């Protein structure tokens, strides 16, 4: 009897049905194994990231894993070994019986590597039965999950609170009291109000602020001197794209490859400034090629973080430690971005020039003259004398003085070409060598001088210049090599542009031509790509709820957070791509109309205990406003906010001494009049010394792509909203509006609160402010109302979205 029971138990343990690789096995491998046997280190020549690597014999000659046979698998032998020298994981606690059991069962089942969930294309989930009072499919998913956890959804938020929430969310500004009254007194419906917000020009300004963190948009070049960069036209492109509800697939393609579109428009070329937001290092004595490479690396990393929720950067020095991205594959991605004209030069060229109307004719004339110079240079180069000089010059290139005259980023390719016999060179190679010759030889100096003068004349015209991507012509395309340990001085094997094997391949008919950025961009938004739509809906969700469905917006990989509502994520992703045809406005509307979004954010101690961070969504979102919203709200409720859109960035007042860059004579020229009160996203953004109150409220420096701002709560923030002259000016203006609004102090204060919040105060709060008013001098003191206005604008309720 006893024996029988234990035999039964034993068999129950050892013949468990099957294990789930992602749930039961991958966590063991990631936690205990891959730091030594993974993408970075391959101790004993073993890597457990890919099946084919794990099944090969390791250094010992024995394979770690023999599918179907755990007892013959070295991996099992080593995890159960009693000798501490041999037992794995080394110098760590042994695996538990359960973990070993999972590994055994998995090997017995054939040791298959299941792909990570995020790398498998989403399929339309079946929708749970509609929830009783749920309005949308979103609610069906969320409430089914809440039911499992024994939680109940919260009631709808109070009308005024909800109107304020959705207004801040959709246009980044607080509602007018009239709007609140209109919705709450049923003059218009909530949905009509939402449509009104989506149509507002303020919409694009609010959502551009989110996108500009991803685009690492700033008005300067970064690094030591951090000189100015005129790239605000890109910011305006983003605002307009959101306002026009440019479908996200189109938005993607234009930013990554707008220059490669047939008959690209000016706007499409300007969109490529997305990737010209990389830094330019103008510090003396820097190697331009080193920093050009750094910019290309940034483009790879940013593209993969923004669209694929992946930190590809690990793989620039070695294989990715956890995710199945190989070192070589990283450089295949690098190759997509390695063929543009820009090269870390101070002037940030090439640029898109847009001439003022009155100067366009002159600009055309100069352009024609430049073409003339170019063709005369070509003719001169064709003369027998200079053809011979070109050949001689090629033989002199081992002289550092001769080769040194060639721009350093072109030297390697030139030296490679001149080693090829002239008859074996392609036309492009020959043209390449000639161009370098022409650009450095004294015979052409007169032409170059003429060209410089024309360039200066062109620079003197009224125009906007914006750095853009410009593909290199075929003849000057760069080869891409794997860089050993990520070091650009150690080029290894040559690679062609391609996407990593763990993601679906790029579909194409013509396999003879090399893939380019346009192919990559189209692939990102193709139906086959498993990540883009999920990553994007997750970003928008996080903006509204404060927490993504996948909490790690920037990492959908195996070490990222698992989604709490996976089916909702997939439903949103597929709907966004298909039914909504990549319309961001439609996506946002779908979410803000749901009951889940409209819930009250009030929380009971029990609910706080059960779900402190609101991952299950049994209540509405409540969190502090963003840096931009804090400023814009203060200016808005005080009536100071300028509605001017677009244009060069502005310099509202900031304290003296913020800009102290070495070797820089840039000055903060404080704006006058209305320009002092523009929305935050128009504030001049210097990377090394950003606008202080923005940084204090957790905005990034924009030196690199940031998916998620960490929200903090600090006394320095209190000092900003209490004392920063911008906020003091806003309080004074609000006090003025309060005085005009009513006759008695109590009514004035109530009006001020309503101007600030959109809805009237409860009596206890009003009492507190009235008593403050009296204590600081009351009616006899002109500033007492300002003190009250300042206090209203410092309440947690005002600084938060509730």
């Amino acid at each position, binding site marked *: 009897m006893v024996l029988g029971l234990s035999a039964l138990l034993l068999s129950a343990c050892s013949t468990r049905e099957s294990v789930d690789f992602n749930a039961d096995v991958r966590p063991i491998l990631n936690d205990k194994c891959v730091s030594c046997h993974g993408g970075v280190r391959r101790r004993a020549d073993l890597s457990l990231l890919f099946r084919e690597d794990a099944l090969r014999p390791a250094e010992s000659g024995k394979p770690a894993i023999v599918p179907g046979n755990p007892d013959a698998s070295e991996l099992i032998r080593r995890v159960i070994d009693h000798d501490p020298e041999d037992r794995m994981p080394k110098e760590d606690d042994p695996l538990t019986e359960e973990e070993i059991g999972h590994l055994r069962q998995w090997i017995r089942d054939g040791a298959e590597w299941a792909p990570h969930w995020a790398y498998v294309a989403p399929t339309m989930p079946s929708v749970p039965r509609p929830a009783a009072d749920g309005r949308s499919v979103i609610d069906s998913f969320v409430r089914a999950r809440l039911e499992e956890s024994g939680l109940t959804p919260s009631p709808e938020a109070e009308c005024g609170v909800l109107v304020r929430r959705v207004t801040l969310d959709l246009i980044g500004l607080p509602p007018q009291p009239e709007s609140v009254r209109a919705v709450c007194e049923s003059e218009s419906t909530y949905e009509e109000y939402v449509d009104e917000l989506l149509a507002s020009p303020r919409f694009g300004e609010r959502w551009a602020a989110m996108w500009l963190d991803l685009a690492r948009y700033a008005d300067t070049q970064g690094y*030591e001197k951090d000189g100015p960069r005129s790239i605000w036209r890109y910011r305006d492109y983003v605002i307009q794209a959101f306002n026009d509800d440019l479908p996200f697939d189109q938005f993607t393609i234009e930013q990554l490859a707008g220059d490669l579109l047939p008959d690209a428009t000016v706007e499409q070329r300007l969109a490529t400034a997305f990737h010209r937001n990389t830094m330019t290092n103008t510090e003396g*004595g820097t190697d331009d090629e080193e920093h050009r490479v750094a910019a290309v690396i940034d483009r790879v990393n940013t593209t993969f973080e923004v669209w694929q929720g992946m930190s590809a950067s690990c793989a620039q020095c070695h294989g990715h430690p956890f995710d199945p991205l190989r070192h070589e594959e990283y450089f295949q991605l690098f190759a997509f971005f390695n063929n543009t004209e820009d090269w870390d030069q101070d002037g940030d060229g090439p640029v898109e020039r847009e001439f003022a109307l009155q100067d366009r004719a002159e600009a055309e004339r100069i352009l024609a003259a430049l073409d003339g110079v170019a063709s005369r240079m070509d003719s001169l180069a064709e003369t027998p004398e200079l053809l011979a000089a070109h050949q001689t010059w090629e033989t002199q290139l081992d002289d550092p003085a001769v080769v040194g005259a060639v721009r350093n980023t072109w030297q390697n390719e030139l030296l490679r070409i001149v080693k090829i016999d002239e008859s074996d060179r392609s036309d492009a190679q020959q043209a390449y060598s000639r161009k370098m010759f022409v650009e450095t030889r004294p015979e052409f100096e007169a032409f170059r001088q003429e060209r410089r003068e024309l360039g200066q004349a062109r620079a003197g015209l009224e125009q906007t210049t914006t750095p853009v991507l410009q593909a290199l012509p075929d003849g000057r395309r760069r080869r891409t090599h794997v860089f050993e340990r990520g070091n650009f001085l150690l080029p290894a094997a040559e690679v062609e542009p391609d996407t990593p094997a763990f993601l679906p391949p790029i579909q194409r008919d013509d396999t003879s031509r090399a893939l380019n950025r346009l192919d990559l961009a189209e692939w990102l938004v193709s139906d086959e790509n498993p990540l883009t739509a999920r990553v994007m809906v997750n970003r928008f969700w996080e903006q509204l709820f404060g927490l993504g469905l996948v909490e790690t917006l920037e990492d959908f990989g195996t070490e990222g957070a698992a989604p709490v509502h996976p089916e909702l994520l997939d439903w949103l992703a597929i709907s966004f791509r298909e039914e909504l045809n990549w319309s961001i406005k439609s996506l946002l509307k779908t979410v803000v109309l749901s009951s889940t979004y409209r819930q009250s954010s009030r929380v009971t*101690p029990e609910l706080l*205990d059960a779900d402190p961070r609101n991952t299950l969504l049994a209540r509405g979102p*409540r969190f502090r406003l963003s840096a931009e919203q804090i400023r814009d709200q203060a200016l808005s409720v005080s009536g100071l906010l300028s509605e001017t859109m677009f244009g060069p960035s502005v310099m509202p007042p900031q304290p003296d001494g913020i800009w102290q860059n070495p070797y820089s004579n840039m000055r903060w020229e404080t704006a006058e009049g209305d320009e002092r009160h523009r929305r935050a996203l128009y504030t001049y953004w210097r990377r*090394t010394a950003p606008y202080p109150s923005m940084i204090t409220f957790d905005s990034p420096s924009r030196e690199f792509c940031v998916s998620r701002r960490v929200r903090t709560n600090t*006394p320095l923030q209190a000092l900003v909203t209490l004392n920063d002259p911008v906020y003091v000016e806003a309080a004074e203006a609000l006090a003025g509006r309060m005085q005009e609004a009513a006759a008695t102090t109590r009514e004035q204060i109530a009006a001020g609160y309503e101007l600030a919040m959109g809805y009237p105060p409860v009596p206890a709060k009003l009492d507190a402010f009235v*008593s403050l008013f009296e204590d600081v001098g009351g009616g006899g003191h002109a500033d007492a109302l300002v003190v009250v206005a300042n206090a209203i604008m*410092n309440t*947690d309720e005002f600084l938060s979205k509730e």
Partner: protein
Amino acid sequence: MTGLEKEAHLEALRFSTRRHFLKSCGAGFGAMALGALSSLEATARAGTSALAGASTTGPLPHFAPSAKRVIFLHMAGAPSQLELFDYKPELQRLHLQRCPESLLEGKRFAFIKGVPKMLGPQAAFSQHGESGAWVSDRMPFLAGEVDKITFLKAMHTDEFNHAPAQLLMHTGSPRFGRPSMGSWATYGLGSENESLPGFVVLLSGGVQPDAGASVYGSGFLPTVYQGVQCRSAGDPVLYLSNPGGMSSDVRKRSIEAINEVNRQQYEYVGDPEVLTRIAQYEMAYRMQASVPELMEIDSEPDYIHEMYGTEPGVTSFANNCLLARRLVERGVRFVQLFHWGWDSHGAGASEALNIGFKERCEETDRATAALLRDLDQRGLLDETLVVWGGEFGRTPMLENRTGDDNPYVGRDHHSDCFTMWIAGGGIKRGYTHGETDEIGYTRVGGSVHVHDLQATILHALGFDHERLTYSFQGRDFRLTDVSGHVVKEILA
């Protein structure tokens, strides 16, 4: 030392208490990535600071620390070790001879092109103190303090441009986005003062560091850990002063009203974040008193001003040294000074070894020495680590960009060897570690990489540098990246 051990133990208890709260609250460590933890945590200790670390759970110190605080004197631009501490008579002999080409092979320089000439020491050297350390006549005051110091003569780095090298020195990576050393320290240890930031930055020389605010930024750590710049001109901390005409009493009353309304709000919505906000407003008010008091160096006695060479009311390195002492006295964890202007290429007077460099030495020598002496006299040096140095060194070769008649003498950037020094907080007194070859061009022993220095500083603060980590983008990051060894030889 037992006192320190006891304190470390108490600190550990305090942290574990906080951790207990967090667990019972149900928030896992995933929460930390969102920064939500910091505020939840502050709620647990409502009424205290969430500024620069006091509010957040860091990892516990791993062992008893030998230092409680750090003052890092960064000489931005990279001072020449060959004119200060690394005495090379052989280089004098080779003065103005052509550099052997073998020295140039495979090397990358910022400005030197072709074959340069060698440049002998541009200062006179002598030995000082019981330890017999070599110091040039450029730093006569510091020469008197060498017996308090460990010199690291074989420092090296990976970068040879200022901005990336400064980032590497302070964040462990030449690229942007990593937390700085002061952020790691406050993340790990919190603050000892509830009315002052835990990580304070002081700039002099009229210019910010080349890599900007990122060298004291918090990277992917919550921004509560970023360095707070205290300024000598204008508000010492931005927006510290009340608007014109508002008295402290009125401010106090208005914060009371704000907090009363916030308490009502908390009772209504139940969000603990509101309690944190209340605590922050209280601390803001306390800072309005404590920071100006801190900055009032004219309250110091005359002999102190004499010793440091301070002059109240100006922005100077000397004033910042005195402020650094006042900050550590008040329990501030990490004080970061930057003094700009050491980039002695010789392309102009301000960056010539014979002019600008000499002036930088005169601006800093007296106060640096005074800081060491003052800390020592107050018994603070034993628990405060003082670190001095630039982001890289300079070449033994003359850099001459402008031609033979250039009246200015300079050297180019050199990443292979340079001198830093470190004192106090459990470091040997009167000691020299590491050595360079006879011309000061390569290291011949006792190499210390920037990551090794960082590992050693963290070690002094009680941390195993490999275990002081923060999970970000699926990976545990640390200050020392994937390398770094504690320089055991210099520990007392």
